[in-house]
Every structure is written in structure tokens, then in C-alpha cells.
């Protein structure tokens, strides 16, 4: 694996439910090709997918970036959207503002952010109401 890392970048669009997961899928396949351990890949894939779904469900648009180094993967998901009014509340398992049509698809259970925290080694969230939300995550290999 090159020392400077491999960078992947994806544009995410609001309500693109058919394309939802494609970015995370590509990240996962790249990690597999690089020979990263399967249990580590699984944690990265789950974190990326939860973040990707959040943008598609809640934001207007966003960018997901994955930087893969020999010892770690860094995920940054930056969206333009309504932002989160109470980040502390959003981090609680079970808290969700997702509408019914999202819940009918199997999402919006309020497990996304806590799940990302659980799967990553470093997790940071910054949200500005009316502007958007930025997630930064690191998973060590």
C-alpha cells in the first residue's frame, strides 16, 4: 500500500435511495483489494454506510471521502443540510428525527450515530444548524 495513501471521493445526493450504499460498497471493495483484515473492513464499511445513509436521508447533498493508509482509514462525510439541533440527543441510541417513509425502508431507528461511534477508533461530529454536518472518523487497521 502506498505510504501517501489512497483517496476516494464520492458525491452523495439527497433521497437517492437506489444509489445509496454505492460509495460505501466501492470503499469496501478497495479495502478488500488492498488486503485489509475482514473484521476491520466490516467496521469501516458499516460506518461509511451509516454515514452515507444519513446524508441521503437528512441532508441536501454531501461528499464522502475515504483516505486509506497502511495503518488506518480516515472517513470524512461533509454535508449541506439542515444540521442537527441537538448533537447530544442525536448521539443517543434510539433517538431519531427520520420520517415514516424512511422508517418503512428499515432506517431511522436512531442507531446510526451510536453505531458509527462503536465501529470507529476516533469519531468527531460538527454540526451547524441551517448549514450542515461534518463527520470525521478514523479506524486503525
Amino acid at each position, binding site marked *: 500500500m502506498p505510504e501517501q495513501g489512497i483517496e476516494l471521493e464520492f458525491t452523495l445526493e439527497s433521497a437517492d*435511495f437506489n444509489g445509496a450504499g454505492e460509495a460505501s460498497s466501492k470503499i*469496501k471493495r478497495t479495502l478488500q483489494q488492498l488486503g485489509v483484515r475482514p*473484521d476491520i473492513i466490516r467496521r469501516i*464499511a458499516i460506518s461509511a454506510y451509516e454515514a452515507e445513509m444519513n446524508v441521503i436521508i437528512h441532508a441536501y447533498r454531501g461528499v464522502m471521502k475515504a483516505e486509506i493508509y497502511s495503518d488506518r482509514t480516515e472517513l470524512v462525510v461533509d454535508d449541506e443540510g439542515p444540521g442537527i439541533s441537538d448533537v447530544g440527543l442525536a448521539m443517543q441510541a434510539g433517538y431519531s428525527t427520520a420520517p415514516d417513509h424512511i422508517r418503512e*425502508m428499515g*432506517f431511522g*431507528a436512531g442507531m446510526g450515530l451510536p453505531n458509527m461511534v462503536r465501529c470507529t477508533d476516533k469519531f468527531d461530529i460538527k454540526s451547524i444548524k441551517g448549514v450542515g454536518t461534518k463527520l470525521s472518523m478514523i479506524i486503525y487497521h
Partner: protein
Amino acid sequence: MKLAQVRIMLNAEVLCGMEWLDRDVKSACGSDLMSDVLAFTKEQALLLTGLTNIQVIRTAEMSDLVAIIFVRGKRPGPDVIEMAQKMQIPLLTTERQMYEACGLLYKDGLAGCSLKEEPSCCRNKG
């Protein structure tokens, strides 16, 4: 337990992935909440669900699930089946309801994904 045994026990029809029925199933989870599946299942777990959309396949892909069983005779559309085939995720459908399907498999020794109840099953290694 092999996936082929699960198929017999639930009298399930194989929608795709007939060639992967010799896979081992280590544990199982019954849920229509994909976030719960992402949070609580372990790799090589079997998912029983009543949801048939594309997100179910994506969730299985991200979580390294071994196969998906649709309960209550539900069938996904051809686009969903095609995607699962491409990702090598076997899809089966059973007429059994969720509670019955889970109960039959559990009674026959297929563990859940709870760490507390099944310390030997499917715990993350590292």
C-alpha cells in the same frame, strides 16, 4: 449449521445463490430495522426479514451476512435479486412468519447474535 439445512427446515425457496448453500451459518438475526442489523449482527450471520428493498442487500453486503431469508412469502423485485446475485448473497423465501421461522431455527440450535447469551458464537475477534 449449513444454509442447505436452514432451507429444508423452513421449506424455503431459493431465489438466488443455489451454488452457495454449502455455506456455514454461525448465528441469525430477525429484524426489519436495518440499523439494528448493522449494529447487532456478526459476520456470517443469517438475516430473517420482511423487508425486500435494495437497502437489505446493501446492509448484508456491509455486514458480511451469509444469506437473507424473506419471511411471510415475501419476494423482492428482479433488480434486488440481480444485485444480490452479483454480490454473492443467497436469497431465500419462506411462507413461515418471522416468529415461527426464527423459533424453528433457534430450537434447532442456531444461536442469536447476543454476546451475553452465546459467548462462543460470533464474537468479534480483534
